[in-house]
């Protein structure tokens, strides 16, 4: 486990809950936090001295640090381990996806974006897509942040540019543009969401290469938007409150075009920890569908994965009703 912050500590705890985990070696740059996490987890957890020590003899390495996961991923692959990254940074995600050939060659997995968003968002998209013969559009929206690193990334993401997949090409759109009122599951309700530098289109385009349009938006309030281009005015919170996801998939079933809207509500760091731990467990057990570097939409069977998450308290929801679509064609 590289990183023992809000997500990393929870992923380690979830891993131990899932069982069959011999040892969790944890590395963190904050010595006090590392010792506290190791002490709270008990004997299966040990403090690693450095990255080399953390990845040595590991089956799977979960990377839950702020962006810059490629170096740790390379060290893990070199040590013969699979990788689970919770990065939500576009450049980071692209760098990890670029390791696909190397991971396949070594018969290892690199699960890219195995957190709340991306992560749970990709699973919801993949699950909704199963209702259609052909996926036409995917629109992801999220609101809320996990730990301080996630809050900083949210701040940076609003600066843009957003990347969107449109008919096989990449479009760069201005951050904070494209306001849309998105309805999330209760108790979050309606939130204004905007384009931002979010990695979902990059990850989902690999899983759905024929989709005509893949977009992502993030909920932001006025202060977020006004201060996006300034340094953060105050220290980010240790942990955010409730967050939510909404994933809308449009597709064709025969001649009929329809929407399917899935969502989830949880504390983002809690859900991210559960998703990362489950992805690591599945990678170790050989339950992922193929080797190489990709998101969970490509690497995991979404139904059983979501069912396993539901057993851990991370539950998906479906929207039923008229006017489900929040996006214009």
């Amino acid at each position, binding site marked *: 486990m590289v990183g023992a912050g809000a997500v990393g500590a929870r992923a380690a705890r979830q891993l131990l809950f899932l069982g069959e985990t011999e040892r969790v070696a944890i590395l963190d740059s904050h010595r006090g936090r590392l010792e506290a996490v190791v002490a709270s987890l008990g004997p299966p957890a040990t403090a690693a001295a450095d990255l080399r020590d953390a990845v040595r003899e590991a089956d799977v390495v979960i990377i839950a640090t702020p962006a810059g996961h490629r170096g740790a991923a390379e060290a893990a692959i070199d040590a013969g381990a699979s990788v689970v990254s919770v990065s939500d940074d576009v450049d980071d995600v692209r760098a990890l996806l670029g390791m696909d050939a190397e991971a396949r060659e070594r018969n290892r997995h690199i699960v890219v974006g195995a957190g709340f968003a991306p992560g749970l968002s990709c699973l919801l998209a993949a699950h909704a897509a199963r209702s259609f013969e052909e996926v036409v559009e995917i629109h992801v929206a999220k609101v809320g942040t996990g730990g301080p690193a996630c809050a900083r990334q949210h701040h940076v993401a609003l600066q843009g540019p957003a990347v969107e997949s449109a008919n096989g090409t990449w479009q760069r759109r201005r951050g904070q543009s494209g*306001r849309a*009122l998105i309805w999330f599951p209760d108790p979050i309700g*309606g939130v204004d969401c905007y384009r931002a530098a979010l990695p979902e289109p990059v990850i989902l385009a690999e899983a759905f290469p024929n989709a005509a349009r893949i977009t992502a938006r993030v909920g932001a309030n006025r202060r977020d*938007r006004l201060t996006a281009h300034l340094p953060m005015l105050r220290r980010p919170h240790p942990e955010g409150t409730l967050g939510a996801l909404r994933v809308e998939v449009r597709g064709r079933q025969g001649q009929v075009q329809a929407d399917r809207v899935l969502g989830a509500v949880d504390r983002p760091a809690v859900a991210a920890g559960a998703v990362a731990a489950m992805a690591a467990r599945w990678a170790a057990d050989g339950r992922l569908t193929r080797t190489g570097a990709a998101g969970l939409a490509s690497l995991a069977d979404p*139904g059983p994965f979501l069912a396993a998450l539901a057993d851990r308290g991370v*539950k998906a929801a*479906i929207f039923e*009703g008229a006017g489900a679509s929040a996006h214009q064609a």
Partner: protein
Amino acid sequence: MRAIRRGVLALVLAGIAGAAVRLRRGGPVPLQQGGWRELTGPELK
């Protein structure tokens, strides 16, 4: 000097107007017609 002051004033007013437009509250919020329910076991296969 007067021209500079007027220029600065115009920039400030334009900035305030731009911020107001950027941060304006939208129109009436359309109601959601429908509801959310939890996905259950058979739907997660």
